[in-house]
């Protein structure tokens, strides 16, 4: 967990986890979104320090772009030797012209140690690659809450960038992987709490025998199953290039980001004082789930997207 994740990263990358969404011609597996989702769940469950969601989404854009992204960067990312972080520029007005890009991306996971940065404009499908690590400045986000990864606010001032096209799937992919990361943590903690209440005794019984405890865990299991199926469905559609994929991703994000914190916080309750300790570690998942939601500006952003997909936006003037 935390700072030293890069030491072991080439090994994990060697298993292929960085290449699930990179075309075969560039040395990856194609567009295996479901596999990337599984990896993200596992990394989330392990509280891994990598900015996996951003890394996968950015290497996907870089390798698939019709502009020639530096081949050695893509190769380096696949080998786990280089890391590209993903940021979303705060406003579309941030300009990129002949004099480079100027702007702010408030929350960029892994920005401080990344070798390259891919910046998405909020309302355009173009992405801008900044391949010179010293070109941007990073301020830590205060207060820090998630302690398993590091996140910063990136500022760019007339920084040269390479425009890459073909980023249509980048943001849905990024967002889906963030949801998968949270989901992996929720699943692991739910499982752990269920075994804990089976062993822990009070009043002569396992506390899991009290219906007050049992029913809540069942409710959480139902929610978690819905989240898990939602994430898997969105992964399938995105992988298949379905036109409904973006809507499905928003549904998955909304389910995960609006439920996870509540479920995890209740697992602390059902565990009792030991659940309240640093060592027991439930809080790491709460912090991380919040951070994932924050990176996606969720649940509100997903709710707004969904309202758009359903055709509910801008109807008011019509109806009058």
């Amino acid at each position, binding site marked *: 967990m935390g700072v030293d994740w890069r030491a072991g990263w080439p090994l994990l990358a060697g298993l292929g986890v960085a290449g699930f969404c990179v075309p075969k011609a560039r040395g990856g597996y194609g567009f295996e979104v479901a596999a990337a989702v599984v990896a993200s769940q596992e990394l989330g469950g392990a509280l891994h320090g990598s900015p996996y969601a951003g890394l996968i989404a950015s290497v996907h854009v870089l390798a698939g772009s019709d502009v020639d992204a530096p081949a050695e960067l893509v190769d380096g990312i696949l080998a786990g030797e280089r890391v590209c972080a993903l940021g979303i520029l*705060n*406003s579309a007005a941030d300009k990129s012209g002949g004099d480079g890009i100027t702007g702010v991306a*408030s929350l960029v996971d892994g920005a401080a140690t990344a070798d390259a940065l891919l910046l998405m404009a*909020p309302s355009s499908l173009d992405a801008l690659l900044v391949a010179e690590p010293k070109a941007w400045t990073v301020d830590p986000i*205060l*207060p820090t*809450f998630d302690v398993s990864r590091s996140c910063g606010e990136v500022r760019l001032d007339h920084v040269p960038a390479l425009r890459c096209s073909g980023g249509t799937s980048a943001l849905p992919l990024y967002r889906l992987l963030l949801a998968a990361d949270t989901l992996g943590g929720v699943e692991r903690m739910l499982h752990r709490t269920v075994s804990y209440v089976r062993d822990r*005794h*009070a*009043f*002569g019984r396992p*506390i899991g025998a*009290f*219906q*007050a*405890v049992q029913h809540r865990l069942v409710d959480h299991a139902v929610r978690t199953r819905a989240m898990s199926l939602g994430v898997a469905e969105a992964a399938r559609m995105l992988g298949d290039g379905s036109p409904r994929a973006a809507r499905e991703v928003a549904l998955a994000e909304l389910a995960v*980001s*609006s439920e996870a*914190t*509540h479920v995890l*916080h209740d697992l*602390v*309750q059902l565990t*009792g*004082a030991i*659940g*309240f*300790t*640093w*060592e*027991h570690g*439930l*809080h790491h998942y*709460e912090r991380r789930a*919040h951070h994932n*939601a*924050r990176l996606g*500006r*969720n*649940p*509100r*952003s997903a*709710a707004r997207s969904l309202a758009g997909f359903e055709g509910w936006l801008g109807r008011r003037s019509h109806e009058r």
Partner: protein
Amino acid sequence: MNAEPAEPFREEVRAFIAARAPRLRHQEGVRVPQSPDEQREIRRWLRELYEAGYLGAGWPAEWGGTPDHHPLHDLVLMEELFRARAYRPLDQVMLASHAILAFGTDRQKADLLHHIRRGEHIWCQLFSEPDAGSDLASLRTRAEPKGTDFVVTGQKAWSTDAQWADMGMLLARTDPSVDRHAGLTAFAVPMHLPGIEIRPIREMTGSSEFCEVFLDEVRLGPEHVLGDLGGGWAVVTSGLASERAFVGANAVQLEMMFGDLVSLCRAARIPDGTIAIAHEDIQAQLAAALSKVEGVKLIVRDTVERILQNEEHPSDGPLAKLAYTELNVELCELALEIIASSISVDAAEAEVVTRWYENFLWSRALTISGGASEILRGLVGRQLLGLPRDS
């Protein structure tokens, strides 16, 4: 509640807090001093609260109480401490005072109470064990009678403030052969006795407020027994401090939290760059939260009213705690949702975000300790609704 007679008193207390309260920046919930200087300041502050007659005023006059004390003043004090975010008196110390007054011998009262009033005795509670929490009566720490003495061996857990406490109120088993409640005895234990080892445990908030306490053949004399031999259960469950009206201050706490929620929504920007509070969906969430806050404030005030009239129902305290602590969790979850949904929070209000993160993590301390919500729901179900006990 008609608080008007208390207004001049309120002004006085406010001025006192402004002038005398230590200026500490403590994480929500944390009361452990972070340095020797802080500890001196805290003890000085507690002593001054007693000296000024703001704390311990409800005690019998012979032990330092104020004869014409009005319990409403306890409430006003606590409300103002919350409002000023000032260091608050420690629950365990107030509960210990109450237990000594209610169960102690005259000798114990003479020996112990003045130390509390002078800020010299911080108390902790040595009740819970790793395997005995909600089901406290299953505890296993033994206090084995040896002549008139006792030899205590066992392990206590989650003892808040034990690392700087001078005294501990211990619940231990003196007789394993009788009914599990009847075999328990309460003791007033000096924490520096040989055989006591204290290890702070780090909480999920990052602070180290509670501790494991290991007791290895700790020798206690008859003067340490609090209440009757085998009467420990009554001592620790009499629980209610004389300052019962303190519960009312939670209304102020909720008001302040709601204020923080509004500040957050004024400082948070959603991705289109506008402030959160300008949006109808956020306003609707705030309004729903406000109606719950006002509802719980009414519950809390109603409880205080009954306490002041001495018309309290046994379920009132648990019900108020349940209502307040559960709403606290809900407000924290909402605040985190709003933070997550925003693109940024104005730097001037970064302190509000810090407070919400701390409050969120700490909110679980309140729903687990002092009677977990599930246990309280059971109590209220039986005592208020008259439901049968789960077999």
